[in-house]
């Protein structure tokens, strides 16, 4: 029950980045990376990516604005083609 494979470990590791891994899963992951170097290294990098993303305070433009903008570009391109 405690032994998992690399694929499962990777999945738990991804969930853990979003605080969606259960306690048992976290324990399974910790055990797995004790003996699996590849997953250990991937886990470390994955956690680092999470840290970087939160440090960078990324923003996204909202979806409505993007859609509006796409339409405008599309309309403009069509007019250009007709000329």
């Amino acid at each position, binding site marked *: 029950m405690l032994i998992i494979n690399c694929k499962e470990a990777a999945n738990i590791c991804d969930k853990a980045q979003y605080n969606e891994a259960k306690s048992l899963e976290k324990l399974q992951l910790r055990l797995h990376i004790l003996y699996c170097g590849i997953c250990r290294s991937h886990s470390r990098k994955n956690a680092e*990516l999470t840290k970087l993303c939160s440090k960078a305070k990324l923003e996204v433009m909202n979806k409505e604005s993007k859609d509006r*903008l796409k339409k405008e570009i599309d309309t403009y391109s069509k007019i250009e083609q007709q000329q």
Partner: protein
Amino acid sequence: MPERKLDPAQWVDRYADYLFNYTIVRVNDRIIAEDLVQETFLAALKSAKSFKGKASERTWLISILKRKIIDYYRKNNSAKGKAEVKINYNDTDEQNGEWLEEQVADAFDINAEDAMQNEELGLAIQQCISRLPEKQAEVFTKKTIEGMETEDICKELNITPSNLWVIIHRARTSLIECLEKNWFK
């Protein structure tokens, strides 16, 4: 190297968030930032004919955006008095001799340096995201940047949770690789 061509239909998906992040750090207002990004795309469309394919599309768009931001501050300055114009010319992909003088002034203030580094980090991440396949970029952005719940994303995109995690895994693996190349050097 093949000559680069413009592909306006892809601009919003590929560059809107990148340009938006670049702008919001400088104008500190979402609405103004959106307006400036919009103006940038429209100006780019109008001058598409002058694009010679020497720079990448992104670099070219950023150069237009920089001018839009400066214009914005000029207009604002005349109305409101002094405002700080914060433009970082020290972009990796467009070293330009003319700006050297301006680069000298900065860099002493530790906070400013920190903020600048975080900004560069943000742009590096955004750039890596824009290189992902569309679906991966979309799911990763919703989950990581917008902080949406797994369930909500699945509903919106009509995918199962296990689909979602496979997509997230691919996205994260590519992003790690991309950042190792472009950020950790």
